[in-house]
């Protein structure tokens, strides 16, 4: 329990630093949205006097010093207020939660997918070292790592468009996009979610299956396996009783760094496949310098991974008694 509390406490400085980085990103672009907005107003012939500019500045809190702006933004977040989206003229919080939830769902599905695929292949490769299958999967793994996500998405779209005549973008069929959640909408999503899941999961699957293979090979050459074999334990039991379990530990411990990778891949894949997740909106926000929206996305995506890391640390401590709690 103290271990859990300690790890949770350690999250706080991490989160503070991440919030500072996010805020720096918000502040970085030269010229803010407001000056662009005012320029647009002027160009469209509207009369913009100084009073309007000052009022707008005050409304978005841009007249205060930077640290005050940060403080307001950071403390606002704790209350669930992420500032105002300039472009949409709505509070950021009304724009992001739905998309963030879908990003989370896609990433979670991808994580499960990588495990389901990587575990059996990893075990097969280790038990059939240097066989044709082993080389085949090794080769696939290298290709999987080498293909950038967006390219794989493009190629999949191209293949399905020109050979099966259907476009694979989006997460929902047209009639479900604005519909409230229902069983039909959920099953419709399941028929479409596999494409982003495969695209995002390929690299991670490849990595994990190589890790599992290496770990299992290490484990299988240890004396205790030899002893068990000498005592007549069946090969099957020999494999699954201990070596596989030990070799699986990295699956839990890598969740921490898998999550940033998954969410990172999700962002760019979503742009290509036009998914209703964070990616396309983040890109739009960055292009139009809608910085509070963009910064909040980066902040919340990072928070998601930090929480994921915490969960994986706790799971690991629970599963692997050799890890000390100190």
């Amino acid at each position, binding site marked *: 329990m103290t271990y859990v509390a300690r790890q949770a406490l350690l999250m706080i400085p991490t989160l503070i630093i991440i919030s500072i980085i996010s805020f720096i990103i918000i502040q970085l*672009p030269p010229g803010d949205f407001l000056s662009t907005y005012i320029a647009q107003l002027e160009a469209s012939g509207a009369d913009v006097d100084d009073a309007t500019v000052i009022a707008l500045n005050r409304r978005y809190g841009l007249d205060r010093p930077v640290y005050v702006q940060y403080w307001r933004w950071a403390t606002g977040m704790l209350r669930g207020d992420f500032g105002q989206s300039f472009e949409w003229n709505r509070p950021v919080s009304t724009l992001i939660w739905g998309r963030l939830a879908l990003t989370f769902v896609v990433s979670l599905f991808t994580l499960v997918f990588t495990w389901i695929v990587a575990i059996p292949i990893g075990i097969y490769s280790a038990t059939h070292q240097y066989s044709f299958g082993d080389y085949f999967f090794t080769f696939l793994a*290298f290709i999987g790592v080498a293909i950038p996500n*967006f390219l794989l998405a493009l190629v999949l779209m191209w293949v399905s468009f020109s050979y099966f005549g259907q476009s694979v973008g989006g997460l929902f069929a047209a009639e479900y996009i604005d519909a409230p959640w229902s069983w039909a909408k959920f099953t419709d999503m399941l028929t479409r979610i596999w494409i982003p899941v495969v695209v995002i999961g390929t690299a991670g699957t490849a990595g994990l299956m190589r890790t599992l293979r290496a770990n299992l090979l290490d484990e299988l050459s240890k004396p205790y396996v030899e002893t068990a074999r000498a005592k007549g334990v069946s090969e099957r039991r020999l494999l699954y009783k201990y070596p596989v379990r030990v070799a699986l530990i990295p699956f839990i411990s890598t969740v921490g760094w898998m999550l940033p990778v998954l969410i990172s891949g999700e962002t760019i894949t979503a742009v290509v496949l036009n998914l209703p997740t964070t990616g396309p909106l983040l890109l739009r926000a960055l292009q139009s310098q809608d910085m509070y929206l963009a910064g909040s996305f980066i902040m919340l995506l990072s928070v998601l*991974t930090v929480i994921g890391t915490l969960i994986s640390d706790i799971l690991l401590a629970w599963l692997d008694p050799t890890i000390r709690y100190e």
Partner: protein
Amino acid sequence: MAEYENKPTGPQGEPIPEPSAAEGLDEGVAADEEQVLVASQWRLIWWKFRRHRLAMISAGILIIIYTLAIFCEFFAPYDPTQRDIMLTHVPPQRIRFVDSEGRFHWRPFVYGYDRQRDLDTMRIYYEVNEEKKFPLQFFVRRDPYKLWGMWESDLHLFGVKDGYVFLLGSDRLGRDMLSRVLYGARISTSIGLVGVFLSLLLGVVIGGFAGYIGGIFDSITMRIIEIVRSIPTIPLWMGLSAALPPHWPQIRVYFGITVILSLIGWTQLARVVRSRFLSLREEDFVTAARLAGANEWRIIMRHMVPSFSSYIIAAITLAIPSMIIGETSLSFLGLGLQSPAISWGVLLQEAQNIRTVALSPWLLLPGLMVIITVLAFNFLGDGLRDAADPYSR
């Protein structure tokens, strides 16, 4: 070395003479072994690396790619910005030796196309016209260029005198894809090298200090690295590169992007350097050097750096691909380099519209180049990592 020290000795300590018959038989082997024993560390690494066939092939491929990139002006048949509105989206031409009448020609040639318009869909398509034969000329003088912006020339490896040659097709403005892919290689492959160099500087300095000093500095550094790594890279890169001023000249954007890429890249290298420092600090030869009165700087530079530089080389080789993928992804999203700069990512922007890709799939070829380069670096890095410690089995 161990074998010499552990030679069996007689009661008085004099070496027991080995059986002479065995000596004669094993002379060749013994000579080889002796070579191994006196070989320098780098030579051992090279011997071990040489056995890794995939890594050797990859090294060859990378040398070719970088040569093409360095001299892209010469290898590209066209100026990559030269457009021709009558030759838009031309499919790749095949190099032929045998013409339609079955005659063999020593000089390879390509067939020209007839530009047609489908009257139902109003789409333009091309039909091979075997009447139009464009023989390839080698060392042809065509579009002038300035090699590395310094030497003027108009010599190209190949080209055609009349007609056109698009071995990888042409894009929506009728520009030669092969030339564009080659020019793109220059930016895309060099961004990986420059980015890795910057990461290496940061990584070695920070990781080295953390590993050597240890203590609180070490914990803080490790904590920072952990935090940086917990931020999803693509959103972070996107955020940072969106901040690059749009009016910057391309060369500054280029360096801006490399700096952004290496802001994340250094963490991996710093970890490698740190862990090597930590393990080497306890080694006997470091203690020996310290006892012999060597100062800290000499211990680091003379004794520690050489023994972990092979690991560093392997680590940076494995770090380059993520830089290349990073640049390509950012440029593809329109947040990195922008046209008129030519990089593989910029070229892939043209392939964003899936309908265009369906009609002219050769627009995806820059992506194939990315995959080949990344694969080659990964295999090379793997081979180097295995060879980095030549004493392990």
